[in-house]
């Protein structure tokens, strides 16, 4: 019997491409964010609100992933910013090579903020690095407040938790304090923003977070 020790990462090819993307994003000073959530938590609505709040000259672009249809890209394209649909054709998550391919005919020098909307799924996307600076997880108050405990890997890897649909809080039994405690249990110190994409409540905090995150990203690029 002959044992060959390997210690080789299963996703090393994905990690390699993600590493290349991260270098390209750094070169062009792009802040790339990977938005993740379960289906229906409001990723696309948050993006609509975000694009709506951008000035015409803002250099923002969106890649939106779904298993089928280009419905989300159609919803997002009407704001006039570059939007591209990635249709995975059955795959339950985005992979780095899909991002690489989608970006092939875009001029990265024209982009400051790249928002990637992952496939709605709180499990699989957590394993795949897309070269992003940070993951943002979106949890809506129509879901269970214990989602952070049920899907710890995703909440552990996300820098920011957006608690969405807070306009519905009077009508649902969602316990915000408990959700915050669970998220902090899995990821101590995780940043949390409560908002409603429908009413716009909390949107200024999200905008502020995006602005300060871009500044801190640039500062970290300048020092490395």
């Amino acid at each position, binding site marked *: 019997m002959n044992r*060959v020790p*390997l210690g080789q990462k*299963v*996703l090393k090819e994905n990690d390699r491409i993600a590493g290349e993307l991260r270098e390209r994003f750094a070169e062009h000073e792009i802040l790339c964010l990977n938005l993740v959530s379960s289906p229906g938590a409001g990723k696309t609505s948050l993006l609509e609100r975000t694009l709506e709040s951008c000035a015409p000259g803002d250099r923002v672009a969106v890649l939106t992933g779904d298993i089928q249809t280009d419905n989300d890209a159609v919803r997002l394209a009407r704001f006039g910013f570059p939007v591209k649909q990635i249709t995975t054709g059955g795959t339950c998550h985005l992979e780095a090579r899909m991002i690489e391919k989608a970006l092939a005919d875009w001029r990265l020098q024209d982009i400051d903020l790249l928002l990637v909307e992952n496939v709605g799924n709180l499990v*699989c996307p957590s394993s795949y690095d897309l070269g992003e600076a940070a993951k943002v997880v979106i949890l809506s108050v129509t879901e269970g407040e214990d989602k952070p405990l049920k899907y710890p890997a995703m909440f552990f890897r996300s820098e920011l938790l957006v608690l969405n649909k807070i306009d519905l809080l009077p009508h649902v039994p969602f316990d915000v304090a408990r959700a915050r405690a669970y998220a902090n249990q899995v990821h*101590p110190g995780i940043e949390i923003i409560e908002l409603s994409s429908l009413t716009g409540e909390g949107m200024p905090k999200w905008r502020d977070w995006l602005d300060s995150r871009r500044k801190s990203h640039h500062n970290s690029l300048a020092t490395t």
Partner: protein
Amino acid sequence: MHELSIATLVLDAVNAQANLRPGMRVSRIGMRLGDLSGVDADALTFCFEALVKETELANAALEIERRPQRNTCPRCETEFTVVNYESACPACGESSTRSVSGDELELAFVELEEP
């Protein structure tokens, strides 16, 4: 449910090792799977067994070593296993500790033997 694509990548890597050693047969495949890897061990085993059926790897055993989340304390440098997501340092109570392992998704080893 991305375990099928993970299992496919693992088998590609195992076959690459087997091809380096003609005449040997893979008898055991070792993986390390962290609790934070986002991969389910049962689903991975199921996919693995479905993929190797009637191939040269049909008799290879898959051994999965589960790795718990381990954190280290920046204040007293204690390293500890995180149980039930309780990430405060058990020695000094520091609440903000840093994860050092638990996200492994690795092919640890292959064992080959003469047929």
